[in-house]
């Protein structure tokens, strides 16, 4: 039984982020890949949309420059023929402040001939901002909006 493309990609991605080894992930990305991490690009410049392998490799490098992954738990996972989706809880360290961060995210990945052709990541970005950039006095209060 062939290993699902998600497992190969996931291993290579974590290796790229934690060990700055990009050789393994490069052949697993389609030339025409479409990649989006939904979130505030003004606060996290590695969020937003990228198109093409070079741009995606660059954004993975930017992420590797800023965080280390300590642990991730897949709370739910679904594997399709050339698609996959997971709900994950990540424990990270932000490198420039050495701050521990925990955040939940969901991803939807699509593969073409074993290579990543599309990635959509949704992240609880408010929680992330609170843990990384929010000064305490900026905490919001409940609204009825």
């Amino acid at each position, binding site marked *: 039984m062939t290993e699902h493309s998600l497992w190969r990609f996931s291993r290579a991605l974590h290796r790229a982020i934690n060990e700055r080894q990009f050789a393994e992930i490069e052949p697993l990305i389609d030339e025409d890949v479409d990649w989006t991490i939904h979130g505030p690009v003004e606060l996290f410049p590695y969020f937003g949309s990228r198109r093409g392998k070079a741009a995606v490799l660059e954004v993975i490098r930017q992420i590797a420059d800023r965080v280390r992954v300590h642990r991730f738990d897949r709370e*739910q996972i679904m594997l399709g023929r050339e698609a996959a989706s997971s709900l994950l809880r990540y424990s990270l360290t932000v490198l420039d402040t050495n701050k521990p961060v925990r955040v939940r995210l969901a991803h939807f990945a699509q593969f073409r001939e074993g290579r990543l052709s599309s990635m959509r990541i949704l992240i609880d970005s408010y929680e992330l901002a609170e843990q990384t950039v929010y000064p305490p006095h900026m905490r919001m*209060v409940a609204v009825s909006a």
Partner: protein
Amino acid sequence: MTEELNRQRVLNMFETFYAGDIESALGRCTDDVEFFSNAPVDILPHLGSHRGKAELRAMWQTVYSRYTEMRHEVPIILAEGDKVAALLRLFFRKRANNRVVQFDLAVFFTLRDGRISQIREVMDTFDLVEQVLEKDLSSLLTGKATGEP
């Protein structure tokens, strides 16, 4: 076969819910349905964690009390065994001022005996809070106007 059925069950639930038929949507859930949305409950107190149809009904009624119109698109849906994941694009029109809130939502369902027993949501909460409050929080935090380098 079960996967295709479950996929269709979830799509049917979206149709009824976003058409405003909360009772029909609840009818597609188990009595002990669990709901969890990763959201800042200090700002959006109706989200967070709920259990059972009564709590889910109250939460959905709160959402409906705030928006006059809801539209949804399902760009991605994936099913495996008793689980279904969907990426939704949502358009909600605010009752207060007619402005439209648009956001993407990842929803993970678990089904039991053909009914939804667990719902877990993840979304770009920063963007949602900005749209709900109609405040540019990024500018407040960075001291820069949006688009300013």
